[in-house]
């Protein structure tokens, strides 16, 4: 095939969680799919992510995509590879104004069809006794869950392969051609192409602005039953959606293994992947302020990852402006695990000219083409 032309219904560039979901959905519809991935499957942001399936309600479009996606995640709730654990999300209010916000947010989530309710301080401490004293209450979203994303990505790629998809492992797309892609070994593939390369998007589509936003995570030894819910501070959105150069927020997760995964930190313009002692310190101090018991736990590993961030925080899902048969699904920032299945469904509807279940306009890549 080297140097030759092969014809495909969909060439998926990138096998992170987004590319894997797209490839799986396309193969399930009977398309002849080819997947190209230079590194390990799910080895980029997918491997670095917390794997928290969560609906953020501060933007209606983001909420719509998350809700749509969360319904599809239910398909994997019994999948062994997914390590799906329905721990629920407990948002913690540090003051009265945050507690009031919890009330408004639970109403918004409920209006969107997501079960959520505010909890008072007494209930909060019953749910998570190790929280620091002085918290005012919070919001419980009981149906949310955590998964292990890299294994889900592998499962989806394998499932696509079982339906005829081809995987070009260890190969990189050197350039997009007029009718497909050219790989780094010279192979040319022809067919509609979907770019799902996350942070590497600018290499192929520099016209779509995207910045890597670095994160840090730490995981502990096993401490079963110390923590039951994914905990976040209600001020989390200020960190996640603020434009500050760097920010941290309290965000801890009970892994099904009994380990505790601790986030979260956000940094723009941090090019190297090294663990930054300063960011780690800020992030951990924030976590200790909410959960002092963490101080004494044994950390096993710390690592970093990069979230693909678009200027408006919404992913690019749809046709690449000015190009025929070229599609993009990238820029999910910190919500790529949650929103990948919905993104794939939406994109396939667009490719086939069907009307998607949710309005695709907010995610259209054309929004940034001035």
């Amino acid at each position: 095939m080297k140097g030759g032309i092969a014809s495909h219904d969909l060439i998926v560039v990138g096998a992170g969680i987004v590319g894997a979901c797209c490839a799986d959905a396309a193969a399930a519809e009977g398309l002849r799919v080819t997947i190209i991935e230079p590194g390990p499957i799910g080895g980029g942001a997918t491997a670095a992510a917390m794997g928290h399936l969560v609906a953020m309600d501060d933007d209606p479009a983001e909420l719509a995509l998350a809700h749509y996606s969360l319904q599809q995640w239910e398909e994997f709730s019994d999948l062994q590879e997914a390590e799906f654990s329905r721990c629920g999300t407990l948002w913690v209010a540090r003051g009265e104004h945050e507690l009031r916000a919890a009330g408004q947010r639970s109403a918004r989530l409920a209006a969107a069809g997501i079960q959520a309710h505010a909890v008072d301080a007494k209930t909060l401490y019953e749910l998570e006794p190790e929280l620091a004293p002085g918290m005012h209450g919070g919001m419980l979203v009981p149906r949310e869950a955590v998964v292990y994303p890299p294994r889900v990505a592998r499962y989806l790629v394998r499932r696509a392969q079982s339906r005829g998809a081809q995987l070009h492992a260890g190969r990189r797309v050197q350039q997009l051609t007029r009718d497909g892609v050219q790989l780094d070994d010279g192979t040319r593939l022809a067919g509609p192409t979907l770019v799902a390369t996350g942070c590497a998007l600018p290499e192929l589509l520099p016209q779509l602005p995207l910045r890597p936003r670095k994160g840090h995570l730490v995981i502990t030894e096993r401490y079963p039953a110390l923590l039951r819910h994914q905990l976040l501070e209600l001020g989390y959105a200020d960190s996640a959606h603020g434009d500050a150069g760097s920010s941290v927020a309290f965000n801890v997760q009970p892994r099904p293994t009994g380990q505790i995964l601790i986030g979260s930190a956000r940094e723009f313009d941090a090019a190297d992947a090294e663990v930054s002692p300063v960011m780690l310190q800020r992030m951990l101090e924030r976590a200790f302020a909410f959960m002092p018991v963490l101080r004494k736990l044994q950390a096993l590993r710390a690592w970093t990852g990069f979230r693909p961030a678009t200027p408006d925080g919404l992913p690019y899902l749809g046709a690449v402006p000015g190009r025929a048969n070229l599609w993009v699904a990238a820029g999910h920032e910190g919500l790529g695990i949650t929103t990948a299945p919905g993104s794939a469904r939406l994109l396939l509807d667009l490719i086939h000219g069907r009307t998607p279940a949710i309005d695709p306009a907010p995610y259209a890549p054309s929004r940034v083409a001035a």
Partner: protein
Amino acid sequence: MSGLVRLTVNGCAVEMPDGSSVAAAVATVTPHFRRSVRGESRAPLCGMGVCFECRLRIDGVAHQRACMIPARNGMQVQTDD
């Protein structure tokens, strides 16, 4: 070299020569140090702090390497069951 230290392992009183490790004290009581992820019984492999097979709870603190910690008077050691 001369003295003895007294500690408890899983509630049993143990006397060891000063300078002994917690691992040695545990071995006088039980061959079992920790349960692996799949529930197998495990005990020290490397004896020098590398393999983490001797992890157990000392005075309430979990995941301590028994081979690296000197036995001390009054210590309460608990293997993982």
